[in-house]
């Protein structure tokens, strides 16, 4: 008996029609997607969509008061490139981030090492250094604003020691230093706890073995501690760098970007342009720049980890 090609095709089609749509694989997909839907929906609505919209707004001239919304293409980007303030804003951002990251990480590591010792009262000190993390950011900053006034608490203490303190928030260099230090003291506890956890994960026998080989304290720190806690150093540095580019409330409360433009960092400049001067389109353009900077720095750190993070090579 000869089976024609047409018959074969008909049989195959019938078989295909009988095959259920909900195959095991498809059901698995569905269940998986259902599980991630709530999170995904949140991310799409509150992260992805605004991200795309910011890109769209950055190509508009949006006059809020008049209610006009005009597509201007790359005009805002050209304006950004020619913005006379951009250089000083980027410089302030760089100084602020570099100062903050260096001071925060060094201090956090130092405190973690000190508090990792078996000494009386370490729990108390750990709590003490961590507690600013839990304080409301604005309340914290307002209190510091009073302390940093010309006749505030800091200069009162300095005066008692016979030192004539500067007008902290009015001098260009001291204003930047003040903002950095206020932010470091606020958040150093968080990095300290992360470092502390990492330090406690370093096996004690490594130190003992190194000691028997005659390694001094510095060598043990450099050759054992640093490599073994390097994943935490990577984590804290990424968090701190990204966080430093998002510091807004402190600047808004302490200096409002002044004196001059000495503490006008990129995110504060963005706020001024969009919400104070009503240039919403241009503000969106600046936020695209901020996004690119954060993304580039994070990517760079992630790439460099192979070079210096233990176990990542």
């Amino acid at each position, binding site marked *: 008996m000869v089976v024609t090609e047409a018959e074969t095709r008909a049989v195959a089609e019938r078989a295909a029609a009988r095959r259920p749509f909900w195959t095991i694989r498809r059901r698995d997909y569905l269940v998986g997607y259902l599980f991630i839907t709530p999170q995904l929906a949140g991310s799409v609505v509150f992260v992805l969509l605004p991200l795309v919209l910011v890109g769209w707004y950055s190509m508009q001239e*949006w006059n809020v008061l008049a209610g006009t*919304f005009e597509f201007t293409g790359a005009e805002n980007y050209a304006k950004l490139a020619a913005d006379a303030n951009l250089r000083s804003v980027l410089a302030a951002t760089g100084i602020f981030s570099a100062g903050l990251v260096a001071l925060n990480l060094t201090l956090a590591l130092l405190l973690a090492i000190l508090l990792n010792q078996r000494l009386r009262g370490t729990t108390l000190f750990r709590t003490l250094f961590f507690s600013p993390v839990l304080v409301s950011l604005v309340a914290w900053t307002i209190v510091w604003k009073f302390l940093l006034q*010309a006749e505030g608490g800091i200069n009162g203490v300095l005066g008692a020691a016979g030192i004539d303190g500067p007008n902290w928030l009015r001098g260009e260099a001291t204003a930047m230093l003040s903002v950095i230090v206020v932010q470091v003291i606020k958040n150093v506890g968080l990095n300290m706890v992360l470092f502390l956890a990492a330090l406690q994960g370093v096996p004690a026998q490594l130190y003992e073995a190194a000691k028997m080989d005659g390694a001094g304290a510095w060598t043990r720190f450099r050759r054992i501690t640093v490599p073994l806690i390097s994943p935490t150093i990577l984590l804290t540095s990424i968090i701190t760098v990204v966080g430093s580019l998002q510091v807004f409330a402190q600047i808004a409360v302490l200096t409002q970007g002044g004196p001059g433009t000495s503490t006008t960092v990129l995110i504060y400049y963005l706020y001024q342009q969009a919400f104070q*001067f009503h240039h919403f389109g241009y503000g969106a353009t600046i936020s695209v720049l901020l996004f690119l900077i954060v993304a580039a720095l994070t990517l760079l750190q992630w790439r460099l980890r192979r070079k210096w993070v233990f176990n990542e090579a």
Partner: protein
Amino acid sequence: MRPLGKLAAVAALSVLAVSACGGGGTPAQSAGPKTLRMTVWTASEPHLTLLNEIAAEYKKTHPEVAEIKFESIPAETYTTTLTTQIAGGNPPDLAWILEGSAPDFVASGALAPIKAKLDNAADLIPSVTKLWEKDGELYAYPFSTSPFGMFVNTDLLEDAGQDDPADLVKSGEWTWEKAMAMSAAVAKKGKAGLVIPDFDDYKNWTNLSTIWGGWGASAWSADGKTCTFNSPEMVEAMTFFHKSVFTDKAVPGPGTTVDFTAGDAAMAVSQISRAGTLKEAGFGWDLVPLPKGPKGEYAVIGQAGVGVLKRSPNAELATDFLAFFTNQANSAKLAQFFPPPRQSLLTAETLAKSNPLLKQEQLQQVVIEGIGKGVVKPTHTGQEELLQTVRTALDPLWKPGADVKAVLDGVCAKIQPMLGA
């Protein structure tokens, strides 16, 4: 990766959908009783009680209004919050507007015209409505016109062996030179001299117009096109102020906050609406006009208007309520807190009824004469950006030994391109 592809397509579509209605979209008008919303910057209980009383009365005769809400927004972030609401497609129906934002709001066409609807519009004082007009049309009702005066702590002055400012006003010797010398004398004894409460952070520089007005100086020309920050009058006025702060110590320097109402300063340049805060002051005080400058007497006024947002779905109803809110009878009620813009109400007798803390003489000298000859604090389109740019450029002035002329030249170099545009 096809599901992801679909997802991206859905995301892209929703972006298009959202952006298509972004910007120009207005909330749909709903049938039935409507709710009106007015943004205000006061949170003071007596103010809000009065506003709610007026609203309740309006509702009696207007069943189509379900509720009139007064939304308090702090003054420091008021304009930012208001424009953000507008940008978010959720404008209030009515809004108080600070004098600084007036040119932007009036010029942009964000406000609905109101002149035809207002009760007895001819009664409004022309010098007071000027800021809120464009092409002969009125876009906001200047419900508060508050002159600046000088509050003085007579106890502190007496302790320092100084004259009574009221006597100096009478004898014509009430000048800035004299006021600063008296303040310096008080400061020497430990308390602070002269404070400008709205300028105590050395940022909100428009308040300095209360001083440079005496020198006939201004921030920019009347047409708003030329920077006059480096004019000889301004240089002289600012040199005087700089010397008062850093050499004579008559004015507390930057980074110091002094509370006049707590009795810590000899004098304060402030609006008469602040008199209320002196109700329970534990010291003797007086209110006198601003001192004379080299160019003679002058006055400075702060203003606030209330307008209807054109994009409100209830704009017509809101305009009707505004007309009621500001009619002759309600203006008289509002006058107890906010000096009215109506000729018929601006008499020492009317004002005295609602300002028990002030004497008729004070009201006549400071308020009525002040409103008559007053110059509004500097305003311009693009106000916020100008404010910020000038503040930044003025910062180098607020330290000892600053080169006043060079700093002021720097201010003009920065803002002239913005004014000329």
